[in-house]
């Protein structure tokens, strides 16, 4: 039951984009077309799941036993950067079609604050291993949901009449605000 709660709340209630404001850059930058938004969401979910496992291992097997928790920030960011590189090389070797689908989005993820945020939040909430994995997958799916919804709305927005200064980022943020308002309706779903 606890695990279901973590999973659902990561997708709907504490959505990474709409509640924690993490991963705003790809959320605004790669949400013009549904297909590219889907690839980005897929790439983020994939890297988030792996990051959750690796950062948990580093935190619990290296940093905490040796009392090196002041190295948390440095080690997490380095691990994420090298992990993305590794994953990229691995996918290119194993599955060229997947590599083609993810394309440019994979390297871009290194600078995505959502990945770093995931590692930090999991360690802050003191999740155990299974909880961390569920949290990682759920957060990735939540990000995918938000970015695909956003892309769907923005494809329609192209046809709408928008005041000149609000075009681009301005209207995108206002739409995100309305989405956040809609998502805040889920608060209280899990008690």
């Amino acid at each position, binding site marked *: 039951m606890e695990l279901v709660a973590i999973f659902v709340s990561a997708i709907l209630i504490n959505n990474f984009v709409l509640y924690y404001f993490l991963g705003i850059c790809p959320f605004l930058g790669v949400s013009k077309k549904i297909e590219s938004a889907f690839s980005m969401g897929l790439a983020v979910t994939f890297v988030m799941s792996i990051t959750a496992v690796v950062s948990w291992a580093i935190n619990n097997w290296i940093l905490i036993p040796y009392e090196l928790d002041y190295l948390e920030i440095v080690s997490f960011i380095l691990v994420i950067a090298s992990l993305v590189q590794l994953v990229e090389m691995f996918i290119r070797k194993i599955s060229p079609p997947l590599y083609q689908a993810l394309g440019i989005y994979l390297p871009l993820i290194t600078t995505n604050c959502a990945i*770093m945020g995931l590692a930090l939040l999991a360690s802050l909430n003191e999740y155990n291993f299974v909880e961390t994995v569920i949290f990682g997958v759920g957060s990735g799916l939540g990000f995918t949901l938000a970015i695909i919804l956003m892309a769907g709305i923005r494809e329609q927005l192209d046809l709408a009449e928008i005041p000149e*200064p609000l075009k681009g980022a301005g209207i995108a943020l206002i739409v995100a605000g309305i989405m956040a308002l809609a998502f805040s309706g889920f608060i209280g779903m899990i008690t």
Partner: protein
Amino acid sequence: MSSRSLGGEFIKGLWEENPVFRQLLGMCPTLAVTGAVINGLAMGLATSFVLIFSSLVVSFIKKLIPSQVRIASYIVIIASFVTIADRFLQAFFPPISKSLGPYVPLIVVNCIILGRQEAFSSKNSVGRSIVDALGMSSGFILSLLLLSSIREILGSGTILGYQVMGTWFEPWIIMILPAGAFITLGILLGIALYIEQRAKQRK
């Protein structure tokens, strides 16, 4: 090499190249911590500390860093200063550190900081880099203060915890919720762009 005067390097961060309103960098902390002015201010100062000292170190050792590993080196330098800022807040301002939560460690992935190292400090002298970092920091702090003042006044009727609105005022709860952050920033971006377009037409 930049051809501006030192004053020009500073001023450009305030409006012309303002990190939040013009370059759309560092959006995550901008949205996340601006529910109250005190949090916005603390975040602005912590980010400025990291930006200024990272610029100082990067511009100082720019000739020693091989260009293939420069991004990784910048990240390690930035992460060290973020750790200092995080530990400092935890030790001396525990309530602020608690309410900022994971957003202080997240300064390490703030694109403003890495962006300035790559675009400016790695190519310019130490003095110029510090002035540039000061200008960008001021621009960032001012943007955070603007956004957090609007949200705190409308959302709680207070500023820095002091009551400024009369008892007739019904707080707009939406302004403290995440939705208020997105909508306020969206409207402010629109206003900034409008002012810019008007200024261009006059020229």
